[in-house]
């Protein structure tokens, strides 16, 4: 059974259809990358899946449970999904360690000592053990994103959602984060990643979903989609000629 199944998902914003009948399956341990031109609905799709945005129609099943039915415990659902944002979204008044501890204390009800121990372990995993007492303003972009990933992983989510995790980073920091995502990929962490980054799609994904104007235009393995797909829109997006050269 797929961890996440989406059928015919529709989202309208002020009369404009942003998502138009999206189907998506994500198996446990799978890494799926969602790509497409700006404004095609990628981030909206991700936000619909944990109900940060309410879909207009369609069906979403997470671990077999229909999460759009009335009475769904949305907070409990969100606790099973880790979310990493493009702009890190670290809490500026908290240190890296405190950023990770917040969810553990408030949602997992860990004691102070347990939360600290767990947060330190996550920072070690991100090779940031010496940065625990630093505030976000004292960290580089790559370090901030690694703290954001540690914060999400500390909650033991069933799946990690990434919304453009490298877009706000320069190439060097981007590589740092991609290396880390690759490590999670090798550890069989289930991930759904919205990105423009071809490197992420090519090396760290089991399959790529290509969205265009709110619809799935193509789905398949990265090499095929990036190098050989004949659709002129997809070719143009990846900077190839219309004939796939």
């Amino acid at each position, binding site marked *: 059974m797929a961890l996440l199944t989406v059928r015919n998902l529709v989202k309208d914003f002020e009369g404009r259809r942003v998502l138009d009948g999206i189907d998506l399956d994500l198996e446990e341990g799978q890494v799926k990358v969602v790509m497409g031109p700006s404004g095609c609905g990628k981030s909206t799709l991700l936000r619909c899946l*944990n109900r*940060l945005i309410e879909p207009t129609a369609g069906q979403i099943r997470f671990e077999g449970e229909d999460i759009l039915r009335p009475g769904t415990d949305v*907070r*409990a*659902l*969100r*606790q099973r*999904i880790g*979310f990493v*944002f493009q*702009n890190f*979204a*670290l*809490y*500026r*008044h908290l240190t890296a360690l405190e950023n990770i501890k*917040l*969810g553990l204390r*408030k*949602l997992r009800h860990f004691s102070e000592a347990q939360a600290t121990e767990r947060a330190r372990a996550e920072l070690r995993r991100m090779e940031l053990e010496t940065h625990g007492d630093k*505030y*976000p*303003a*004292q960290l580089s972009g790559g370090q901030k994103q690694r703290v*954001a990933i540690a*914060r999400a992983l500390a*909650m033991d989510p069933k799946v990690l959602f990434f919304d453009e995790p490298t877009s706000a980073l320069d190439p060097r920091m981007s590589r740092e984060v991609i290396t880390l995502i690759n490590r999670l990929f090798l550890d069989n962490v289930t991930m759904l990643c919205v990105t423009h980054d071809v490197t992420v799609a090519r090396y760290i994904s089991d399959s790529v979903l290509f969205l265009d104007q709110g619809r799935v235009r193509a789905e398949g393995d990265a090499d095929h989609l990036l190098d050989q797909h004949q659709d002129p829109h997809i070719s143009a997006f990846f900077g190839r000629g219309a004939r796939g050269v």
Partner: protein
Amino acid sequence: MNFWQILAQLATGVGYTLVVTLACIATGLVTGLALAILTRLRPPGLGVFLAVYSYVFRGVPVLVLLFMVFFGLPGIGLEVPPLLAMMLSLGLIAGAYLAEVFRAGFNAIDPNELLAAEAMGLRRREILVAIELPQMLRFAVPGMLNEFTTILKYSPFAYTVGIPDVMKQAMTLAATSLRGLEIYLAVGVIYFLVYKLLLTLMRAVERRFAVPGISRL
């Protein structure tokens, strides 16, 4: 009577000035925080009340409201003690201004942080307490200091309702000694020293809770 003796005589009212100022600051903080939080949470049906409070209390002069409370309310059977009258006039007006300072502080918070907290599964109340309030209060320090200074400067109105503060002492002394210039100069010095004390305390609090990237020290 030399200048130092005048200062010593006036200093007997400093305690009252401080009590009035601190009581009005406390009233303003509680009212301003409550108004700003309610505005932030937007509970249905309260929008009009919050807007009316803000307009009315920012528009009415302190002395008019003080006289309404202290001299007007006894007419309908409500005797209000002098300190409480100051809190219900100067304190509530300060609350309306502080609410605006806090509103600006709330608006300075990065909405992405709130989205991340929501995505994590935190309750609205938890987000307010753990993320919004600590940041907002740090952003609001300069505006709060301005408002606290204004409260201090309006505190001499306390003499009009019989509180023996610095101003009251000065008026009594001036009436008996006819040395108004020295006396009011001494009053100015005392208020400046109290202001300096307030400033030093606020700066110490600001430094204690300073966070790189938020606090500008």
